[in-house]
């Protein structure tokens, strides 16, 4: 230990993200439907999802299990089995149409244009191959280079994601890495071909908070360096608040709210978003009671008529007639604010939020 000990902790503050407006969309999803035919009927996992994302921005997709957030993202990567999945609509990544792309084209598309990081680094890395083997395989699939050059690239990438002593680590097996290090290696593998789109599917859910903080910083730093578009799938609204530019709230296969993160989390306009916020115990402020959404998410085999959220919605009585049960609302701007959309029939949702929901947030 050195005599000159530092008595102040090393700290980081996540600075507010710079707005990048008016850029062309790199990822464009329009009217995406994903269905899985099963013996019990059609599972309607995604029902008409549309959004776009320019380079340099982070979109967080939030929702509970079965809301379609992972299924829609796997469709972007072309990871669904063609035989057992029915996909319609369009997904354009950098101008290339992914829906219906041939397997051969997908092989060159995956990794080079878009890459994905999965939740569980333990099961997404092959236990029989060294970390270096797995990264170089991905690099050589897209670049005609020697093994030696690919390994140098792998070492470089491991260094960039903050793995100490990468030249030694590159020859180690996944079991020799800790959970946080494995996730770093996964990120290195995803970014080795400089993809312009990175999809992170719950990348920090399996990690401890201090490690999660490191990984979130890393993804944000790399995004700044590479200028890529990031789709971040999570159920943790705290994470969303800190790292995302935009947020898309999904419920039972539908997008129910979409817009800039400070607006959606600051004054959400959809009762489902309210329910999510009211379910999360905060780490600061006065602890209050939780108001969870009653019931459980609907079965994707037998979707409710009208608004998919109406059976669990405590505000459905406020909407005139039988509208919530009969007519599915459109995803449209609901207030004077044009930068955001919401899928709900409720009148003046901003006022309802301020007067009724905001005071009881935990």
């Amino acid at each position: 230990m050195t005599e000159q000990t530092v008595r102040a902790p090393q700290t980081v503050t996540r600075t507010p993200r710079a707005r990048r407006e008016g850029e062309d969309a790199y990822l464009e999803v329009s009217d995406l439907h994903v269905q899985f035919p099963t013996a019990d009927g059609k599972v309607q996992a995604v029902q008409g999802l549309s959004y776009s994302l320019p380079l340099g921005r982070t979109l967080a997709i939030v929702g509970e299990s079965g809301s379609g957030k992972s299924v829609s993202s796997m469709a972007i990567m072309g990871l669904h089995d063609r035989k057992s999945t029915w996909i319609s609509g369009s997904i354009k990544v950098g101008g290339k149409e992914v829906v219906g792309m041939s397997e051969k084209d997908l092989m060159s598309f995956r990794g080079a244009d878009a890459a994905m990081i999965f939740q569980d680094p333990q099961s997404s890395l092959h236990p029989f191959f060294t970390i270096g083997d797995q990264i170089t395989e991905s690099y050589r699939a897209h670049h005609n280079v020697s093994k030696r050059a690919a390994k140098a690239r792998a070492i470089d990438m491991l260094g960039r994601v903050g793995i100490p002593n990468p030249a030694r680590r590159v020859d180690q097996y996944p079991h020799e890495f800790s959970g946080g290090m494995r996730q770093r290696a996964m990120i290195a593998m995803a970014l080795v071909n400089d993809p312009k789109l990175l999809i992170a599917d719950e990348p920090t859910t399996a990690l401890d908070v201090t490690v999660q903080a490191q990984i979130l910083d890393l993804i944000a730093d790399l995004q700044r360096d590479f200028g890529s578009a990031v789709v971040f799938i999570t159920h943790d609204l705290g994470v969303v608040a800190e790292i995302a530019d935009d947020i898309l709230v999904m419920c039972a296969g539908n997008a129910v709210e979409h817009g800039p993160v400070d607006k959606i989390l600051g004054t959400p306009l959809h009762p489902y978003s309210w329910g999510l916020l009211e379910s999360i115990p905060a780490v600061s402020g006065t602890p209050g009671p939780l108001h969870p959404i009653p019931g459980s998410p609907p079965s994707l085999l037998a979707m409710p008529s009208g608004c998919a959220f109406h059976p669990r919605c405590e505000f459905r009585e406020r909407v005139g007639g039988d509208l919530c049960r009969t007519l599915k609302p459109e995803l449209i701007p609901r207030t004077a604010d044009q930068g955001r959309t919401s899928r709900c029939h409720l009148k003046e949702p901003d006022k309802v939020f301020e007067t009724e929901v905001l005071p009881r947030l935990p």
Partner: protein
Amino acid sequence: MTTATNTAKSGVRSVEGAPLLELDDVKMHFRTKGDGLLARGTKWVQAVDGVSLTVQSGETLGLVGESGCGKSTTARLITRLLEPTAGQIKYQGVDIAHMSERQLRPYRREIQLIFQDPYSSLNPRHTVGTIVGTALRTHGMVPKAGELSRVQELLEVVGLNPEHYNRYPHEFSGGQRQRIGIARALAARPKIIVADEPVSALDVSIQAQVMNLLENLRKELGIAFVFIAHDLGVVRHFCDRVAVMYLGRVVEEAPRDTLYERPQHPYTQALLSAVPDIAVVRGVPPKQRIRLVGDVPSPVDPPSGCRFRTRCWKAQDICATQDPPLEQKAPHQDVACHFAEPPVESIVAEVV
């Protein structure tokens, strides 16, 4: 303390005036085989290494820490699914640490466990009625004739349809299964429930439902809880007191508000600062986050002295040579650190 020992009808002995549960310097070391062909040099994983905790009747103690810190091992020691290597586990003043299975039987009734994973903790071949009924029968809670009505009563208490007693676990959702696990724990009318990450596997809206259920049960039945979770928001919501663990030791223990507002141990401060806070969108300035370098050391070969010193920015020579004891640094606040002090600025952001 008086030494009068009473024996209840159930066979549970108790010392008058003793706290409900007391762990005194409890250690749990697991043996691992050494490296190499000859497996020389047996090593010991010091999963729990000198934990002392007290839980009063009706109180809720939260246990937080990162994976591998020994929270779950502590839960298994309290419920005596493991026999500790050293130390005392006193239930109402009586040491149960080395009791035989037969002697333990009455105590098992009063100390119940709720598991994390609602999928693997219920037998898929048994109906809900059998699962909850087994707990009733094992402890002789009700006469055979009254079993079904008691099962239905319990299902109703945890918010399930009492008519569903003859269904199997796969017919229920994750949140409902966790309720079945809670009903099973309640069947024995316990005085203390050890809940090991009871809501971690659930979706946020379901998580909030189960938390509200646990809170109502606690208020109505006066059950004490040892609540283990890694989600600091959940623990803050549910617990009266919180103990923070790091590498097999308790590093800080304090009433909830003290711990969250004025944490004194550097690890607690780092842990709290790492939690992403949704308040940033409501205009609260982003908080300073303490960046911890490196990984948690191995519990096979923990650092000398203070176990946190390898990642601590305050570490001095004394930290390597002297193990800081867990001692009172402020009213009700015990901290194991040579340089304990409240954060200079409030690290935990205040709501405006």
